[in-house]
């Protein structure tokens, strides 16, 4: 059986997943730079390497994410909204609500029992409350994004962060630091502020368990906890959460393969 590849070109990272039947046989994650076509190829190459598979074994390539139109070697493009829904349904079949927080946007997706998108909403206006927001604030405090989640969870007196703008949040963070606030507390405040903003987005589609959290920011435990607390519900997270879009794309390709479309 040929494998299906799903490639998700996001604003910050390119992800690729190889799927054969119901098995994820390879994956890759690399940063997107200036040459998107090359990054997509690289993502596929790395995933093939991971799966020890030859390019000829891939029967179908599906692209998703903001850069999906740049994947010139793919056969199909699907929006990341459908893909995250599909992917989340695949890993957590009971999912009814998907929260995807990526590098530059946040999405709330309500899915039906078949993993189809019933309704969705996205953040508008600006980059506030997204992964980028966390990246910038982590930078202002001199941490790496991977560290800030766990640190935020040690806070005892979270400070209030009100700035709705990523750039101004950075200066708000700096001014809290200069006033001698504990970085833990500032980070906890940042996480709470994003959780709150996300909740308001989720309200647009309606909150229904089970909730699955996807996208790069779901790797941040602090964020998972803040969201779950704000929702008052447990939240599914998989180690593969950041790959959810790529998994969904691969699944869409797999369906085509099953339907008899050859490459």
């Amino acid at each position: 059986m040929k494998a299906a590849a799903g490639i998700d070109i996001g604003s910050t990272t390119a992800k690729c997943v190889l799927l054969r039947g119901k098995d994820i046989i390879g994956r890759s994650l690399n940063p997107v730079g200036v040459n998107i076509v090359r990054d997509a190829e690289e993502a596929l190459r790395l995933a093939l390497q991971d799966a020890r598979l030859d390019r000829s074994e891939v029967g179908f390539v599906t692209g998703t994410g903001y850069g999906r139109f740049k994947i010139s070697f793919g056969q199909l493009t699907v929006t990341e909204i459908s893909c995250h829904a599909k992917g989340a349904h695949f890993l957590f079949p009971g999912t009814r609500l998907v929260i995807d927080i990526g590098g530059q946007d946040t999405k709330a997706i309500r899915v039906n029992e078949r993993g189809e998108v019933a309704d969705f909403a996205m953040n508008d206006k600006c980059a506030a409350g997204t992964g980028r927001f966390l990246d910038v604030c982590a930078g202002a405090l001199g941490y790496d994004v991977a560290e800030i989640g766990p640190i935020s969870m040690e806070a005892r007196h979270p400070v209030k962060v009100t700035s709705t703008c990523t750039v101004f949040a950075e200066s708000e963070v700096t001014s809290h630091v200069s006033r001698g606030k504990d970085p833990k507390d500032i980070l906890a405040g940042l996480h709470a502020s994003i959780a709150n903003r996300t909740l308001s987005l989720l309200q647009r589609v309606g909150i229904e368990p089970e909730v699955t959290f996807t996208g790069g920011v779901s790797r941040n435990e602090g964020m998972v906890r803040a969201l779950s607390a704000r929702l008052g519900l447990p939240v599914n997270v998989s180690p593969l959460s950041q790959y959810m879009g790529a998994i969904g794309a691969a699944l869409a390709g797999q369906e085509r393969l099953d339907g008899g479309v050859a490459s």
Partner: protein
Amino acid sequence: MVDRYYAELDQAEKEKRPVAYMLVGGNLTEIVRSFGYEVVFPEIVALNCAIKHKSLDYILQAEAQGYGLDVCGYVKNDLGLQALGGNTPFGHIPKPDLLVCSFSGCYVYIKWWEALAETLNAPLFNFDVPYQRTEKPLKEDIEYMVAQLWDFIHLLEKRTGRSFDMAELKRVLERSRRAEELWVKYLEAGKHRPSPIEAYFEAVFYMFPINVLRGTDQAVRFYETVNAEVETRVKEGTYPVPEEKVRLVVEGVPPYTNYRTFWDFFRKWGAVSVAATYPKVGGLFDMGFYHDPSRPLESIAEYSLGAYVNQNWPLRRQLIRQYIKDYQADAVVIHGIKSCRSFTAGQGDLRDWLIHETGTPTLYLESDHEDPRYFAPAQIKNRMDAFFESLDQRRSSAAATPGRSTP
């Protein structure tokens, strides 16, 4: 026809004929024209500027005067244009001799006309139209408006030295009524499957005469031609969207700055609007209202009261529900306008109501009608793709598993 209208304005200016400025919603075009005024509709000028990609220059001019980022783009387009001398790519816009503010459906009207009055030093008549909160107009509302209309008529008599001719007004209203009936016939063609009309993108162009040229023979003839064209389409099977896949009801003002791009996003998915609320900003003729020569001033008052945005949310919701049913629509698309609160405040609630209480899939998009800085094509396209994708998906799986309804 639009060109001819601007040429006419130019002519009026040269001949020194009096010019009145009016708002589209609930306008008093019949009365004003019967006193020999040419009429400028700054909203229409503004949207034409946006289509021609000129609006940003005027908006920036207005912002330099101090109009904030959040002020309605029409207002900024108009005041910026005035400050720059009134020259548009399609002709010169003459200055007003009279400002008629039909306060119907939008509070900004009051502020806008006030600013014009102060900036251009022109007399202003405020025609206060109560907000419509009941299905049938209230007696006191009509009495209030008719009293104001008489004040207005007396003002016009004083300003022009002409005396009011009721018989002439009745003849004009008769022609209005003819045009209105033909317009409704056009709109209702959207009930056919596939639809021979595009009730949003196309109707927006065709609504010009019904708002601006009501009461003229020209308007009547225009809709006769349009309807003949629609009949030919049906006969020959040439439809605006050749392969109709999704039938939509569209709510909201279009993004005039990127009109074509926006339309193309719909066409790509075989989506056609079969009914829309925006072409009803002038009046809800398709809901049974027509100007009535036997009750001239009363029917004019009812017309002003019945403009789409002058209806409260319960009435707006009801109308949209009716459209979905009558036009067999599959989904609703709402286009929110950043700088127009009149239309937009509450559209989120409408979306929620449509999805949860009527079970209609609904997409909400946001940009601006005049300000190109707020049209983010990639974002809008992404949302549309995802929406139509999911609609498609749910349909095919509903077809595969009969008996299961799409949520």
